[in-house]
């Protein structure tokens, strides 16, 4: 009786292991997006924007569309409310947006819950931000949800935050990396594009 149980258990364990290895390594091939490297044309996307009315953030019903802004150099930053590194680099992006108003800078926040959570967070959060709070930021804010086809994946996100994509006037990707950037780093990447 016990020998039979142990054979059954071992067989089941073996099946589970083989199944897992085969599934994860051969069958599951989602979310590896091609064609978004430097030099490729950036795919279009639309995101809801979060704007500050009288210092209070909310969804104003507007959207940001990438192709609608062709003709300008665009810096797209992906961040999240719970990502310390993203929040630390946000002031640098803000300074950059202030210093170079001809560049479109949009910081798109990802959130698993309902989108109001992000706006509420921006209105109440006090950590890692400037003295005057989030409302005085010069850059635009967007939002994306957790579904499979969201903008983070379509632009080649492999799971790490923060991610920054720089797109030139013609819509060609000039920088696409999942790493932190500060003011000097942004200048190094974007200024050569402005001078073209």
């Amino acid at each position, binding site marked *: *009786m*016990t020998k039979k*149980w*142990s054979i059954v*258990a071992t067989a089941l*364990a073996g099946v*589970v*292991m083989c199944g*897992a*290895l085969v*599934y*994860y*390594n051969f069958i*599951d091939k*989602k*979310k*590896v997006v091609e064609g978004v490297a430097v030099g490729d044309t950036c795919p279009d996307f639309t995101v809801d924007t979060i704007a500050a009315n009288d210092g209070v953030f909310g969804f104003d019903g507007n959207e940001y569309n990438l192709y609608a802004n062709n003709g300008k150099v665009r810096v797209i930053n992906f961040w999240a409310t*719970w990502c*310390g*590194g993203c929040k630390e680099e946000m002031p640098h992006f803000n300074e950059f947006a202030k210093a170079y108003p001809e560049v479109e800078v949009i910081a798109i926040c990802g959130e698993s*819950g309902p989108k109001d*959570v992000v706006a*509420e*967070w921006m209105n109440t959060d006090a*950590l890692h931000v400037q003295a005057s709070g989030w409302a005085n930021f010069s850059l635009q804010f967007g939002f994306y949800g957790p579904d499979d086809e969201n903008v983070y994946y379509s632009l080649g996100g*492999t*799971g*790490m935050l923060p991610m920054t994509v720089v797109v030139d006037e013609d819509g060609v990707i000039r920088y696409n*990396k*999942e*790493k*932190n950037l500060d003011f000097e780093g942004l200048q190094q990447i974007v200024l050569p594009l402005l001078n073209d």
Partner: protein
Amino acid sequence: MKKFFGKIKDWFVRHKPSKRKIIQVYAALLFNANIKGFFNGQIYMGATKNVCVPGLNCYSCPGAVGSCPLGSLQNALAASKTRTPAYIFGTLILFGLLLGRTICGWLCPIGLGQELLYKIKTPKVKKNKVTHVFSYLKYVLLVVLVVIIPLMLTIPGFCEYICPAGTFQGGLGLLLNSENWDKLGDLGPLFTWKFTLMVLIIVGSIFFFRFFCRFLCPLGALYGFFCRIAMLGVKLDKNKCTDCGLCVSACKMDIKKVGDHECIHCGACISVCPAKAISWKGSKLLVRGNDADAPASTEIKPLTSLLKRTETNEQTVEEVIETSKTEVQND
């Protein structure tokens, strides 16, 4: 020639891994089944990461297919102002209730790593009063880094500043792949500190048995709270126990009694007990506990038979019975 092969075969037979080691390796492989992640430098992003694995396994490991319970706990507490952390509490309660610290002994990949490091043949530091006191450090880390810091500062304090699983599996696992080399530019003082700590923990695991588990792991501290009510694990039959203390002496963790909050239920004490008072609980998976008249420890149930093989040498038991007899006489 035949003798040589005979000797080799003999060595393999004597060094056959125990069932527990096999299950540990199986669990480590199953929880990190996304092997392709190590080759393409990307983490797994699919739906099985909705569920937490029972042991410590960083979700930034390219091979990880489930979420780390400790990381998820810290993130949930950090976000507790907007969402009650019910899911992770439920998960931890169920893991603790069903398995308790058998997770530490049987299912945790980091535990496996430490036991393998301990096999390196240096002189070892045996447990003593000092190590017993320092085993309470993990409760301090639990309260400060896993509860208070995420609640107050909304950052996962343990993951960010201490966890060697994150540095080893996530840090090294991701950074050693050439796809991620531009991430090197982001590294600074935090990574340097964590790498240093990881090296110290590795050296500690070579000299101390399960250095991280005993002194630093908040997950072990958390599961330790379920030690009496967990459904699986090692139990002591108080009616048969003669208080000889051989089990505590043979155990390499800082226990005071078999099955207490430090016990990882590895089963090494079972073969040492001369009165055969230690056995596995969980043979009756329903919550009917030990009846005084039911011969619980002598019944062989399917589950217990699977777990029967333990780690110490059979030969020792006879010698031990002899010595304990003489000790009792001298008393």
